[in-house]
């Protein structure tokens, strides 16, 4: 599923235009990204939480050239922790 699919379907279900729906979805994604850029967590109840985590520097190895060590610099990454509804519906036992 892509953004396009979301836009088409939600426009149909709400009667709003695809342009308006597209704008709202794009802004939502942009503002979540902005918030994470400021190191602020984004908590979307039932869906999940986006957080920024620091990853320390480490040495890595190219699997094709194991004799070469590569320095991997410290960096920040976004992690997602699923919320209650997501866990209950999606993260079921196998």
């Amino acid at each position, binding site marked *: *599923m892509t953004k396009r699919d979301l836009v088409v379907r*939600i426009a149909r279900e709400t009667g709003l235009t695809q342009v308006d729906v597209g704008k*709202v979805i794009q*802004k939502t994604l942009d*503002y979540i990204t902005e918030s994470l*850029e400021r190191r602020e*967590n984004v908590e979307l109840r039932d869906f999940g939480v986006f957080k920024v985590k620091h990853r320390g520097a480490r040495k890595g190895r190219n699997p094709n050239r194991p004799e070469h060590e590569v320095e991997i610099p410290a960096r920040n*990454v976004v992690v997602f922790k699923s919320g209650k509804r997501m866990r209950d519906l999606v*993260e079921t*036992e196998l």
Partner: protein
Amino acid sequence: MTKRDLVVRIANETGLTQQNVYAIIQKSFDLIIDALQNGDAVELRNFGVFKVTKRHARTGINPNQPTQKIDIPAKKVVVFKQGKHMKEVVRK
């Protein structure tokens, strides 16, 4: 930042009612959950990808009673992989 903050800000900027903005945002999240429930991946360009992967069953240890072993069954989990733009702005 919460859903409420998003709704208020986006309603102000677009001139749409808070009710309509809320409906769009809530439906987006619900449809993403639906897709994942069906085993579908959700790709939001530049933002990231949500996918469902399997976790094998394993034996865990209760941290408060380390002598006790617990069987953790195999299950599905949602993973998020940050998209190109997200990765770049958060990195530094």
